[in-house]
């Protein structure tokens, strides 16, 4: 495509420049040399145009090549399934499972039967994210501001490395710790009997905070590490004690990062399946668990689709609200993080 197209005009005759070979011009009846010059001019301009067009095409091709894989992937595995679900949500469950064609709002009318899953998800996901934040911020602050730079890398990897092992394995470990042979067993030995830890909202919350902690720490760590230390010196110079410097400078400047982080973790938690499944034991279940149940157990695809579509709608709303708040924070307190 990048090839320059050959000029549609015959190449200028060899003797043209001398003005001697008039008969060779394709423009009969005109004096040959102005025609030749015109043609030459036109050819140059035309070649320029084709070259520019070729350049544009090339640039578009590069863009396409960069975007195509992701676009194709998202189209096939996200957009199309979502359209399918949207369609399913208005269908009926076929007697033998799956779905059959219909147009009904029955599935959406049926949503209240799964109110508990919605309630758990919508309460525990933001609560988990906030709790996670409360645990993560001091750690991130310590790592970014207080830790000896010499050991910082080691300390940061101590946060990140556990993240590399499977969440499943780590959650199983928590199942054991919280289960009857774990902490309750130890408590029983000192006389505190019948403590139930596993399969409670508390256990799910703990699993959530534990599982998502690195995800919360890292972005806050990065934004705190970028913080210009001279701002803290300026703050101290102006008479601010370290605590005042934190609330007057460090915290406000890290807020946008914190907001994004909380929104991100909340959204991920809204679709959480594994932790409630293992640590909630079917008693504390999330929407994710309800979906698995509906699609794989009772094979009620239309109802499952209706729930999934509703969840997406909720996520969009949460995101928009979070954006509005973040925007408001950034709007009244302009922050240059770079």
């Amino acid at each position, binding site marked *: 495509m990048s090839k320059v197209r050959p000029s549609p005009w015959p190449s200028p005759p060899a003797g043209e420049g001398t003005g001697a070979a008039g008969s060779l011009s394709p423009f009969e009846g005109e004096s040959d040399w102005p025609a030749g010059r015109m043609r030459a001019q036109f050819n140059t301009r035309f070649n320029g145009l084709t070259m520019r067009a070729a350049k544009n095409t090339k640039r578009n091709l590069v863009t396409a090549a960069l975007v195509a894989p992701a676009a194709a992937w998202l189209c096939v595995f996200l957009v199309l399934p979502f359209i399918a679900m949207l369609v399913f949500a208005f269908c009926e469950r076929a007697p033998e499972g799956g779905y059959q064609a219909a147009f009904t709002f029955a599935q959406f009318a049926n949503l209240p039967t799964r109110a508990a899953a919605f309630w758990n998800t919508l309460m525990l996901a933001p609560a988990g994210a906030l709790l996670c934040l409360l645990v993560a911020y001091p750690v991130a602050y310590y790592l970014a501001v207080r830790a000896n730079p010499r050991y910082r890398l080691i300390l940061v990897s101590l946060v990140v490395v556990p993240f590399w092992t499977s969440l499943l394995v780590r959650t199983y470990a928590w199942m054991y710790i919280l289960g009857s042979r774990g902490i309750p067993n130890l408590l029983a030995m000192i006389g505190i009997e019948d403590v139930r830890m596993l399969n409670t909202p508390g256990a799910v919350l703990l699993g959530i905070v534990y599982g998502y902690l690195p995800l919360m720490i890292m972005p806050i760590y990065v934004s705190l590490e970028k913080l210009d230390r001279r701002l803290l*010196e300026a703050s101290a110079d102006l008479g601010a004690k370290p605590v005042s410097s934190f609330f007057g400078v460090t915290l406000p400047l890290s807020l946008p990062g914190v907001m994004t982080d909380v929104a991100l973790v909340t959204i991920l938690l809204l679709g959480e399946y594994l932790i409630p499944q293992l640590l909630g034991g079917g008693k504390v279940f999330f929407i994710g668990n309800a979906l698995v149940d509906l699609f794989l157990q009772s094979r009620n695809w239309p109802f499952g689709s209706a729930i999934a579509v509703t969840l997406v709608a909720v996520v969009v709303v949460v995101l928009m609200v979070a954006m509005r708040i973040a925007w408001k924070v950034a709007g009244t*307190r302009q922050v240059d993080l770079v």
Partner: protein
Amino acid sequence: MTSDSNDIEFRSVAKRYGSVTAVSDISLGVPKGAFVALLGPSGCGKTTCLRMIGGFEQPSAGMVYIGGQPMNGVPAYRRPVNMVFQQYALFPHLDVEQNVAYGLKQMRPRIAAAEISRRAREALEMVRLAGFGKRRIHEMSGGQQQRVALARAIVNKPKVLLLDEPLAALDKKLRTAMQIELQSLQRELGITFMLVTHDQEEALSMSDLVCVMNAGRVVQIGPPQEIYDRPANLFVADFVGKTNRIAATIEPGANAVRLANGVGLAKPARANGTAGAAMVAFRPESISLVRDDTATLHGTVTHRIFLGSSVEYSVEVDGLGDFLVTADRRSLDESDLAEPGERIGLRFDPNAMHVFPA
């Protein structure tokens, strides 16, 4: 004890970072109300000194006094000094007035909000930024940010204002304007200003006391004119202003200096070198170009840089190498500039010559 007339006093102060010595054994007193410049090449320890006064670094040895009070171990937020930081370090999340009011809000006992805003606006007026209070920092130009930083630093009425290369980020014209403004601000406030700079012109033009530093030590302290006219050693002569250096010998017994090309000159009265190898230094403006036989040295003009009010020549002097000569345009006839390639004579007053031990 310390003299009461000194706002800042260093007593045998040293600062080491591990095995690196940034500042070694500095003793220095800055009188109340002075405008002092710490001048030196980068890495000479001048910023470290400033940061030890600000409280961002603690000396490894020696004592720092501010207003007669020992400051070792006192954190930055308890010191009666304020600083204008090199890149200003303005708070990006606060507007101009909030930046200026930041220090006032830290005062205990608390100041009423109305009083804070009145004083902040007053400080902004002093730096001629009245009406800019509600602007965001990133909406201000470099020069305006500089003024905000100044207002923020003077609003707490410090004993000493510290300025860390405050004009380095401004263009030349703005820099000159700010130099004058800083000077008049200092007179208006009557407090001690301490400026760190590597720009000798800035140090000479603004301060009334220049402290030249090199390799962690103070090399010379004095009024700008003294520093320029009577440099304590070759380093100061070289660093402050331009200098022509010539290898020479001080003749034993005789009051004469013999330059490397054999030309003998009378030794200036104040030069007290012992006989032997020496270095001689001339300011470019103490040499005039002449075409008559009053010249001491002769050479060939190699380059000419026309600067408007003056002309700089590079002259290849016979047996001595390149000389820089600044000719005030009256020294040769105004229209009659020396041409590159021209043979020319150099004349100077031997008393303008500085003699240093080699």
